[in-house]
């Protein structure tokens, strides 16, 4: 009965999204305040209804109600509680429900916190958000209903894919979805601006925090997914340029560009039309990602044919939203007023350069991801596009961008002085040069590119610090007043410097871990020792062990450095009993920022076992850098200027000031 309630709530939510799609928009276009006022309460109600649905499905998972097809297919009564809950979104139907839940949650947030928005803008934005919600709710109800039931329920479930039975599943998809779906708000704002034919100050103020929020979650989501793949899949890679990864990376690249162009729009009223277009592109890429992953078109062309209804449905939604918004853009964009002028060498110019390279990089990744599909469809020729291709085409686009990063925030608005900016970066440049030479000295000429990569990373990091130091004029006014000024810096300045520092940290991790990694592949007998980068790994033997829903064989290793004990490591090989599926559990030991990584391979008849051991110098910096970037976004969001709302005309302000404080 409860399950039917969840199903009913979902249908009701769909009906209400139809209301919010039409009524407030009608009101906004005809200036009817009562119709516009419908938007907020209905959006909030839709959120609560979907929340009920989600809670019901979660309840069915926790109670192991195998009469629900979705629960039967993806759960097992012996599964730990955490994985019963995360299993809700460990499958197609449930993950779509989570997607829709976040979608309507954002709609409700705009309704509740959008008090300082003009009424027609808020109503139109919520209506557009309603269209998206209605589309996805209809998709769920028509093709992927998680509440389907069995007449004769089975006794035991099929269990969740063992690779997904990990804390990673609890964190990674929700973060990623908040990122993906967060861009729907900027999309709705952009479409609303096009419908109303204006982008005012309030519009500009709202777009940036939402973009920041979505972007920071997407950054964390991608980083989490990357780390999960790194420790779970067992061969030590952390990024594979897999189409499914690209699907999340493209909105990130476009979102990063959007973040930067939104600054220009907010501060200088320039690049309005471009920002609107980027907002449309970014969410379109999120939708494309959803389509690529959900339809299965990328895994194999046949998966698409086995369940064509889902793929075709999402493709229809994709065409409707992307085609519709781009047509609207072509029609209405000329009406948007262009703002301030600027010289090529200026803060704006720097941000345009950022957008140029990020957009080109997005295009390269997009074409690389879709080209094999298109070529196959047109000519029938099968080609593969993988990691070596992306390294070659994406990498060169990032190098000039990273070189330019430290200049951007130091240049003045409107008309900057490149020479003066360079002088402020002497110290950063010197440090980068020093580190490059140091790496050369340490590693010799065998890897020429790696020291340059290290230099680039240090340049970006030191540049970010220089920016803060020059902003507070630390050396001119002395440390005491310098610290006072440091404290008084706006959040967005801290945000910029922190995020730029973070990208430098990530680059450093990528360069060092890929260039200076050491790998050993050996067949080891108990008592054997293998040496990686100065660490001695001794294999002590393997023992069987039992988990709640798996059996495993655990290898025991002792790590020593120069004879001194460092750590014990226990990589294992598991077999999940319900699906009889084997997995490899790597053991990872972190030393400083570096990691020793051991995974087990085939077991020989004589008790020996194949072992793959790595030392990956500074590899954790890759993910730490991402966390720092997200932190930077949080600093920017905390900026007071984003909270106080758009400036109001003087008369209104006086009026509101005269209202006594409550």
């Amino acid at each position, binding site marked *: 009965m409860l399950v039917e309630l969840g199903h009913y709530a979902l249908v009701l939510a769909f009906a209400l999204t139809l209301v919010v799609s039409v009524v407030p928009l009608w009101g906004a276009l005809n200036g009817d305040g009562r119709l516009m006022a419908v938007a907020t309460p209905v959006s909030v109600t839709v959120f609560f209804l979907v929340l009920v649905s989600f809670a019901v499905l979660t309840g069915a998972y926790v109670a192991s109600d195998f009469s629900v097809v979705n629960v039967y297919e993806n759960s097992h009564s012996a599964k730990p509680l955490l994985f019963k809950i995360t299993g809700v979104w460990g499958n197609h139907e449930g993950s779509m429900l989570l997607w829709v839940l976040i979608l309507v949650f954002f709609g409700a947030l705009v309704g509740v916190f959008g008090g300082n928005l003009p009424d027609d803008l808020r109503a139109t934005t919520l209506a557009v958000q309603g269209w998206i919600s209605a589309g996805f709710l209809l998709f769920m109800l028509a093709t992927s209903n998680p509440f389907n039931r069995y007449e004769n329920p089975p006794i035991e479930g099929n269990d969740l894919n063992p690779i997904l039975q990990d804390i990673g599943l609890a964190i990674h998809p929700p973060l990623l979805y908040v990122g993906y779906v967060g861009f729907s708000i900027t999309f709705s704002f952009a479409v609303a601006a096009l419908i109303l034919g204006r982008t005012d100050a309030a519009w500009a103020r709202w777009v940036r925090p939402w973009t920041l929020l979505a972007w920071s979650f997407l950054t964390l989501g991608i980083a989490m997914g990357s780390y999960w793949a790194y420790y779970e899949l067992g061969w030590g*890679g952390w990024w*594979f340029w897999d189409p499914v*990864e690209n699907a999340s990376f493209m909105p990130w690249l476009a979102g990063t560009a959007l973040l930067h162009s939104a600054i220009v729009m907010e501060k200088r009223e320039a690049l309005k039309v471009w920002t609107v277009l980027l907002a449309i592109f970014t969410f379109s890429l999120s939708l494309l990602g959803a389509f690529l992953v959900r339809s299965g078109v990328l895994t194999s062309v046949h998966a698409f044919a086995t369940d064509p209804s889902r793929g075709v449905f999402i493709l229809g939604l994709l065409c409707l939203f992307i085609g519709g918004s781009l047509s609207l853009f072509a029609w209405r964009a000329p009406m948007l007023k262009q703002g301030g002028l600027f010289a090529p060498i200026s803060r704006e110019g720097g941000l345009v350069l950022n957008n140029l390279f990020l957009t080109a990089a997005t295009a390269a990744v*997009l074409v690389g991801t879709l080209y094999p599909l298109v070529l196959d469809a047109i000519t029938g020729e099968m080609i593969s*596009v*993988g990691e070596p291709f992306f390294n070659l085409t994406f990498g060169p686009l990032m190098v000039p961008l990273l070189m330019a990063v430290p200049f951007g925030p130091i240049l003045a608005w409107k008309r900057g002085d490149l020479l003066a900016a360079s002088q402020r970066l002497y110290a950063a440049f010197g440090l980068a040069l020093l580190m490059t030479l140091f790496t050369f000295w340490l590693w010799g000429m065998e890897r020429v590119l790696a020291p340059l990569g290290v230099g680039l990373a240090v340049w970006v990091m030191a540049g970010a610090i220089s920016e803060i130091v020059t902003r507070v004029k630390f050396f001119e006014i002395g440390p005491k007043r310098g610290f006072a000024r440091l404290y008084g810096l706006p959040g967005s300045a801290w945000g910029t410097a922190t995020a730029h520092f973070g990208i430098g940290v990530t680059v450093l991790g990528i360069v060092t871990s890929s260039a200076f990694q050491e790998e050993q592949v050996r*067949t080891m007998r108990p008592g054997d020792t293998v040496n990686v980068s100065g660490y001695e790994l001794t294999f002590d033997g393997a023992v069987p062990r039992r988990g709640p829903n798996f059996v495993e064989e655990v290898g025991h290793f002792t790590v020593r450095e120069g004879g001194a004990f460092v750590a014990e490591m226990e990589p294992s090989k598991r077999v999940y009993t319900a699906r009889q599926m084997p997995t490899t559990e790597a053991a990872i030991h972190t030393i400083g920022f570096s990691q020793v990584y051991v995974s087990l391979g085939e077991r020989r008849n004589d008790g020996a076992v*194949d072992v793959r051991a790595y030392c990956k110098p500074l590899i954790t910096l890759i993910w730490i850098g991402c966390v720092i970037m997200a932190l930077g976004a949080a600093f920017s969001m905390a900026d007071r200027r984003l909270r106080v709302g758009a400036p109001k005309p003087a008369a209104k302000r006086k009026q509101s000031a005269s209202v006594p404080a409550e």
Partner: protein
Amino acid sequence: MKRLLVCLSLVLCVLSGPSLAISPDEILEDPALETRARALSAELRCMVCQNQSIDDSDAPLAKDLRVLVRERLVAGDTDAQVIDFLVDRYGEFVLLKPRFAWHTFFLWAAGPLALIAGITAIVITLRRRQSTTAAAGANQPAPKLSAEEEERLKALLSSKDQS
């Protein structure tokens, strides 16, 4: 959920149980040849997996290909000859980095073309806006005062005279 499909395809690759991508008995004695073999393996696709190189994959087919690459190298083939041999046998699908040819032109050119298109668009926009603002500044004289404004101006000036 972006990992789900990767995981599923991985599972398909691991039909024979988990093992290491490269097993110790495949490794060649000669370190120089082995380094070349590893570099080549990273550019060759495991054709039964999703977008994995034979260097990363656990599938039996990937193992066969790794052994084959090493056999060719030991027999004295150059890297290019090994690649040609595999493309002849399995088609271009086996290459993770497609060859530059007419049918992959747009694939390789997408990034640079986007960059060039972007630069062109920026230059054109800047030129157009500079010329329109320059033209606006040069051709339009300051707007004339309306009759009403003329009268107010006169009144103001005369009141100033009086004081």
